[in-house]
């Protein structure tokens, strides 16, 4: 059903998907103009969970703003912690101890797996399968247990500090993580059988939701969406930060540009994350997790600063404008799904509603991160 269909505008009706709709994973609203079950065009309405993050940055001190990072994208909160820590460290020129860097990478990658697991479960739920969601959440609980033992929270971590971490990890965490890696490898094989190879899923995803490279460039799509379209772009590789250059991992790239390619990219990323964690655990140095000298008051010198990290959904950038005060003068959060979702309108035209929703799921949306 990929051949283009001439749609007639005079026979259309408007279908309002959302803000409360099971497929939108939150409070996104898409006004679809439909011709039968085909989509004529779709207008996305955002802002149902706009939480004023950028305004809050202007009236909170730099350390006080850290908790917000956990709530921007609650599924990969660690990456956002990392991004914010990076930009402030860059601005104030704070050295991070090596052990802290390694622990950061471990927690970020664990969080990335957790995030992809939620995506996998929710995506298959979108496609109508319920059981994989339960398995994914069960596996995710293992990660949450590990991270909770370290950070004290399950979801909205506020673990990174400028120059270091809230606290060190212990041996239980290391043994637990190793056990988890072993378990997860087995579970990934199970998912491959249960979900990836499933003919129904393949038929639904292969060849649907095409996103090409030109489109990625025009919309600024990053992360698995870009990598599913054959763009070898991963901030961890292209713009190395933290200790990522130390690790041997691959950036999965698939050129098909369809929903299935994005699906495979994420599935493979989980494996690569496991590899990174394993290497980081092996190389984990001793030492403190907080720098010896840390400015008492965080006051970056005036100017513009930028930092980007690779979250589970793509390139997350922070532009921080400082005027030398205790608060940021302006803090812009460049969230990956904001750009990724934007291409939905163009790409979904002429699709069946079922395919369009499968396509939307493959973009891996986290609405609060989009609306900020």
């Amino acid at each position: 059903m990929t051949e283009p269909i001439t749609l007639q505008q005079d026979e259309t009706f408007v279908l309002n998907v959302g803000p409360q709709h099971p497929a939108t994973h939150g409070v996104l609203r898409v006004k679809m103009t439909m011709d039968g079950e085909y989509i004529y065009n779709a207008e996305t309405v955002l802002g149902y969970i706009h939480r004023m993050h950028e305004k809050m940055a202007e009236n909170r001190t730099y350390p006080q703003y850290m908790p917000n990072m956990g709530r921007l994208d609650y599924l990969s909160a660690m990456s956002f912690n990392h991004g914010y820590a990076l930009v402030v460290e860059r601005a104030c020129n704070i050295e991070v101890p090596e052990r802290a860097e390694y622990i950061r990478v471990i927690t970020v990658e664990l969080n990335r797996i957790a995030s992809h697991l939620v995506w996998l479960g929710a995506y298959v739920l979108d496609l109508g399968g319920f059981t994989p969601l339960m398995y994914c959440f069960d596996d995710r609980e293992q990660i949450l247990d590990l991270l909770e033992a370290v950070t004290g929270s399950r979801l909205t971590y506020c673990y990174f500090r400028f120059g270091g971490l809230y606290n060190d990890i212990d041996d239980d965490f290391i043994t637990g993580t190793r056990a988890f890696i072993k378990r997860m490898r087995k579970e990934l094989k199970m998912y491959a059988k249960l979900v990836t190879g499933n003919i129904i899923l393949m038929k639904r995803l292969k060849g649907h939701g095409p996103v090409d490279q030109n489109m990625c460039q025009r919309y600024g799509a990053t992360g698995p969406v870009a990598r599913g379209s054959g763009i070898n772009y991963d901030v961890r590789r292209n713009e190395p930060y933290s200790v990522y250059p130390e690790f041997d991992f691959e950036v999965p790239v698939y050129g098909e540009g369809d929903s299935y390619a994005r699906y495979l990219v994420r599935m493979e990323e989980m494996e690569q994350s496991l590899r990174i964690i394993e290497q980081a655990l092996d190389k984990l140095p001793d030492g403190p997790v907080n720098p010896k000298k840390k400015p008492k008051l965080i006051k970056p010198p005036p100017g513009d600063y930028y930092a980007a990290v690779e979250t589970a959904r793509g390139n997350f950038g922070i532009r921080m404008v400082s005027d030398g005060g205790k608060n940021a003068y302006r803090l812009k959060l460049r969230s990956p799904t904001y750009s990724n979702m934007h291409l939905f309108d163009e790409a979904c035209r002429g699709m069946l509603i079922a395919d369009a929703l499968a396509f939307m799921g493959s973009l891996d949306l986290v609405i609060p991160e989009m609306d900020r």
Partner: protein
Amino acid sequence: MKIQEKTKEALAALFPDPPASEPEPDDAEEGEKKPEPRGNGIIEQDYHTRGFHLDAQIEPDQLIEAVRILFDLGYYLEAITGVDWIKDEQLEVVYDFSRYDFDLCRTVIRTRVDRSAPHLPTITPIYTGASWHERETHDFFGIVFDGHPYLVPLLLPEDADFHPLLKDFEA
């Protein structure tokens, strides 16, 4: 040729008389008493302290041209944002660009408009994805992007008539 130099060369064509290479604007930003608005031109920034490589300040009417250059060089648009310099009575609009390949060059294009009548041309014909970014900037700062096909509030309620990120905004 490294992309950074290429970009710099291409962008330099925008400025008929390149500004003197003295790092005067840089100094101005580093805590001088009189924050003199920086002149147009390109500055190469230190990536390790700033996080980006090229920093070009241009006139609003040069915007389309500059963005077209970057599009042709394979840049993608990361974000558009505004900064309210209330003391200068100006609004700065910042365009962040980055590249997909390993030859990394983050480029920032910034332009300033008057706070009383903020108008800029839209770049949606070049970067379709700029649409939401421009709408968002319109939401937050009230900057009008001329020629934008659908400039209605995106993040704020449909009937919102306030611009919350302006420094003189009060709820």
